[in-house]
């Protein structure tokens, strides 16, 4: 009796294992910034289509670009658009597909945690090491009514290469020609001033621990950890509080070229938050493996219809409808 049951159980286990091995595995690797939402998508999608399983490794944008170029993964992911040089190395047409966007906020440590207002040139001045005191007229002029101390500004930036730094320096390069010429934009740059903290947590820790510190972190991180953050003056001259809505607004009013390698910093919209950026999946137009390609396209279509709705719960900004439509049209052109 008992033996029979055991045998039955064994058979059941075996068939389950066989079913699992029959499941198709699609591999992806790259950016860490969107990893929480991708993980959620793959998890939810496993209930929609049980015949396919996605495996995503957040190894960083550099690794994601390398692996998709050498075709060791089925799709890549990157926080910054690929450079022309790198894109030229692709064996076939490689497409950028934006998925979600996020904001980078400017956080600080001041007595009483006042709500600050800042504009781009002031921020560039602080990060260039030219504005060194909190009561500098450039800051005080925008924050009448806030008691700013006669204190040194401790500038904090990310020490690890990151998409957050890319977005932040992209913004500073956009706003200040001086910054563009002397520093430029990248996942990590030669900072003219300040201390480096590792990861969002490192920067936030540094800010919390140093009186008079200023630094930049992801909006999601700042919200979850109750950090104060500044309203930023946008291209229309309005001070905007970073939020998912103001990032969606920035996405909707950014100029997005045909290849989707766009920058959305300092977008023109009146309600657009200026320091924001998208993250991309990297997918070959011509899929090598027909079966996998079909499943990947099915997943992408699902992601843009149903997946995007989950973005806000994880503090990412979903693509606005006009961009979503364009992306869906592009996905429909993937061949396999």
């Amino acid at each position, binding site marked *: 009796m008992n033996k029979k049951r055991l045998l039955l159980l064994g058979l059941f286990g075996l068939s389950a294992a066989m079913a699992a091995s029959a499941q198709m595995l699609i591999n992806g690797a790259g950016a860490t910034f969107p990893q929480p939402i991708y993980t959620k998508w793959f998890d939810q999608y496993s209930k929609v289509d049980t015949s396919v399983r996605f495996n995503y490794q957040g190894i960083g944008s550099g690794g994601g670009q390398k692996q998709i170029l050498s075709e060791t993964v089925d799709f890549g992911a990157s926080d910054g658009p*690929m450079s022309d040089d790198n894109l030229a190395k692709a064996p076939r047409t490689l497409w950028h597909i934006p998925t979600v966007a996020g904001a980078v906020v400017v956080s600080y440590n001041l007595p009483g945690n006042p709500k600050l207002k800042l504009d781009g040139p002031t921020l560039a001045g602080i990060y260039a090491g030219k504005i060194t005191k909190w009561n500098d007229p450039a800051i005080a002029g925008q924050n009448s009514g806030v008691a700013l101390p006669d204190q040194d500004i401790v500038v904090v930036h990310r020490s*690890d290469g*990151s998409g957050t730094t890319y977005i932040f320096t992209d913004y500073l390069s956009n706003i200040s020609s001086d910054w563009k010429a002397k520093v430029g934009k990248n*996942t990590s*740059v030669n*900072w003219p001033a300040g201390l*480096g903290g*590792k990861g969002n947590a490192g920067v936030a*820790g540094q800010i919390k621990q*140093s009186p008079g510190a200023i630094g930049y972190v992801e909006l999601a991180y700042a919200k979850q950890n109750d950090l104060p953050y500044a309203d930023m003056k946008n291209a229309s001259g309005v001070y905007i509080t970073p939020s998912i809505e103001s990032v969606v607004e920035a996405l909707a009013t950014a100029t997005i070229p045909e290849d989707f390698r766009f920058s959305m910093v300092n977008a023109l919209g009146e309600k657009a938050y200026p320091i924001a950026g998208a993250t991309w999946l990297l997918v070959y137009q011509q899929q090598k493996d027909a079966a996998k390609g079909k499943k990947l396209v099915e997943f992408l279509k699902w992601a843009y219809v149903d997946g995007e709705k989950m973005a806000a719960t994880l503090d990412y900004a979903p693509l606005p409808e006009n961009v979503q439509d364009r992306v869906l049209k592009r996905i429909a052109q993937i061949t396999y």
Partner: protein
Amino acid sequence: MAAPSVSTSPHSAIRSTLPAGVRWPDISFRWLALLAAVTILVLIALVGWELYQGSRLAIGHFGPRFLVNSTWNPVTDEYGAWPFIFGTLVSSLIALVIAVPLGVATALYLTELAPVRLRQPVVMIVEMLAAVPSVIFGLWGIFVLIPWLRDHLFVWLKETLGFLPLFRGTIYGVSMLAAGIIVAIMILPIITSVSREILRSVPNLQREAAYALGATHWEVMRIAVLSYARRGLFGAAVLGLGRALGETMAVTMVIGNRPDISASLFAPGYTLASVIANEFTEATTDLYLSSLFELGLVLVAVTIVVNVVAQLMLRSLAGSGTGKVR
């Protein structure tokens, strides 16, 4: 004539009388051990070769200038290793200066002074320190050590020793000195453990002889124990240094990560291991990646050079006895 063969191995005379079939465990073990030893060498060679392969592009592009250039700019693709080499050496040196006296003193206390009942618990606690993950030290550094250093120790150092260029400039908290202190704590267990083993191996005869000459407790430790174990203690320091050079996670969390060269220990710095860990994942251009590989190669080279220098210093150290490194 037959004497040499006997003197090389006391067992050879017996072994040769055994039939060949009985010797196979002996022979196979010898080969197994050889294989293990060779594997290590092959691994090191492979690591070196891979690092060289990865960094060929940067080596060809920058040449020896890479070692002395102090610009690190991923935007313009210009890279130099000097600030990182400087940071690695200085932070390790600070760590040694703090950890060696502390470690040796702890070992001395544990072998010579502490009540026997207390010794084992203290040894266990010191060894537990070695099991704490690096990142925990880093977090503790950020949230506990740094604020205390910034508000108390550094201020005091600046006031009392501010006439030295080492203790001047703005105090941020995160700094070369903070990194040195964290690393010192992390290498303390290995230095203490090794020192303790070495001090324990000092023959009691030494101590008894010194006591017989009328030496005080302190003199016994100084003349009979420490002096006897000098070479071994030096070896312990070198082992600690090896760990300090490669320490990554905790260092990057407290050193400030700025590739600058400053005379002040309050200024932030950067180390070879930290910059590799920080920037490797997001390095997108080939030259960037290759330069990071070259930093790895430089780190291996620095480690080797430091060890060779240490060996040379060790050889010039007078004194024999146990605890010889070789």
